[in-house]
């Protein structure tokens, strides 16, 4: 995780201290309202329907400020489901590169975490971390929507903690 680097560090330098407030504001906004992009790397769809479920009325992730975005350039968190198939390998790398820093990857489901039942299939290269670095793993086949929400909240919590440590 890269904390306050990347996009924000373009604006911040020790001389331009007045921008520090701005930096903080962006960080605060990112933690209070993370935008996600969902990428399916070859899943059985089980995880995907549970991810979509989190956005619908019963779970309603949007009340925490989480919004699903269509373009990787707008997103802070890449939510992946499924084992990485050989066909999607390049695409997930491309999507990851298109995202702006700081960026985080969440692997939803056992397949995304390790390859799951599809380990050893000739069309599968393994879990998401075989291609891009992963910040949070949410196990389950598929994880319940509550578990997905819990995973995202934990990720945000760890960012907040890191922020506080940096302050000290």
């Amino acid at each position, binding site marked *: 995780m890269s904390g306050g680097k990347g996009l924000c560090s373009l604006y911040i330098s020790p001389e331009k201290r007045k921008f520090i407030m701005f930096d903080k504001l962006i960080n605060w906004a990112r933690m209070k309202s993370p935008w996600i992009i969902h990428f399916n790397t070859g899943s059985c769809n089980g995880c995907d329907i549970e991810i979509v479920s989190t956005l*619908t009325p019963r779970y309603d992730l949007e009340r925490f400020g989480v919004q*699903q975005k269509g373009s990787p350039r707008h997103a802070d968190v890449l939510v992946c489901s499924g084992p990485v198939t050989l066909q999607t390998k390049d695409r997930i790398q491309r999507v990851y590169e298109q995202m702006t820093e700081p960026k985080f990857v969440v692997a939803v489901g056992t397949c995304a975490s390790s390859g799951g039942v599809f380990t050893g299939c000739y069309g*599968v290269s393994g879990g998401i971390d075989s291609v891009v670095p992963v910040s949070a793993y949410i196990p389950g086949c598929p994880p319940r929507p509550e578990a997905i929400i819990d995973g995202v909240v934990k990720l945000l919590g760890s960012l907040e903690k890191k922020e506080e440590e940096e302050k000290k």
Partner: protein
Amino acid sequence: MGKVVVPVGPQHPALKEPEGFSLTLEGEKVVSATVRLGYNHRGIEKACEERTYTQNIYLIERICGICSHTHSTCFIQCVEELAGVEITSRAAYIRTLVGELERIHSHLLWLGVAGHEIGFDTLFMYSWRDRELVMDLLAMLTGNRVNYGINTIGGVRRDVSSEQIKDILKTVDKLEERTKYYIEVLTQETTIVQRLAGVGRLSKEDAIRLGAAGPTARAAGVKRDTRKDDPYAAYGEVPFEVITDQNSDVLGRGIVRVKELMESYKIIRYVLERLPEGELTVKVPKKIPAGEAISRYEAPRGEDVHYVKSNGTEMPERVKVRAPTLANLSSISHMLEGGYLADVPIIIAAIDPCFSCTDRMITVTDREKDSKSMLDWNKLRAYSIDWHKERGLDFSAISHLREDGR
């Protein structure tokens, strides 16, 4: 005017055969559409050969998370046929029950996705909220919301208790109320009817010629339903209607699906009232006698076919799966031709190709200028919604949706 080629796809994770489309445009009209297969191929069939039959149940179930019961039942029916065992009627009834609950969740899911594709997000939120009721039932019965794992070779793994039956019946009553309302929306709401009627036409002859399956075929007036034509599990004993429609368009496909929900409620009530006593499983040897078997199953999307070849060991020699979306792909290119680019999302969505994946990439190639530009699925969807808005079809104008039945 120059022709433009628009590849749509290819991420289509749902089934064994993810798909991509290549559309050739003349202005806003689609002149030809080709389907490309082979993306997101995981190699499940090959992997089956290296696993035992019992392990395969769980692998096969994960071909598709939306119709997981479909695939596991279809596979197990093959194995049971090879082993020459007959499951108890209680097991057959429970399989039927879970199969119908799966159909309900899948059709409600489709209704929501279809609403989303035409820019009617209220419908999306409503139907997914109601879908949670079925998900609760499935979780209660099987222990998991998706990938139920209730099947085993020779029967089912969990029983249904009398309290559970009460709960199911109560929920089914609620869902029935909501479904009546959805039927009303689909058949009477003018904006929906105007938006969907006549879009993606597929005549009866074409449906038969192109081998359409499931609601896609039934909406064209083809009375084709494996549950009736080749009954499996308990369907031979359960009375129900095969819903058909004469509309032959996207609207018809929607109407068939919501009306099928009503039939599913009927089947569930029948099954629960007459749930026979008996064992849940019968014993099946680990080594399956050599032979070949084929089995058919009416998935929410159409007919699913599995083929298993055994060589007398604990592992199959060959497993082949033909999922229903593959059967419907050839009719999709036919439906897209002659239509507008703005109708592409809903026409593709109308065959219900397991549609959770929202980030397809679309490359627009202008043949004359030889230029390329990228569009994703969301942009195409947004384009489609705006295009129809300009022509007076605006779903944000519908303000009188009722909140009842719950």
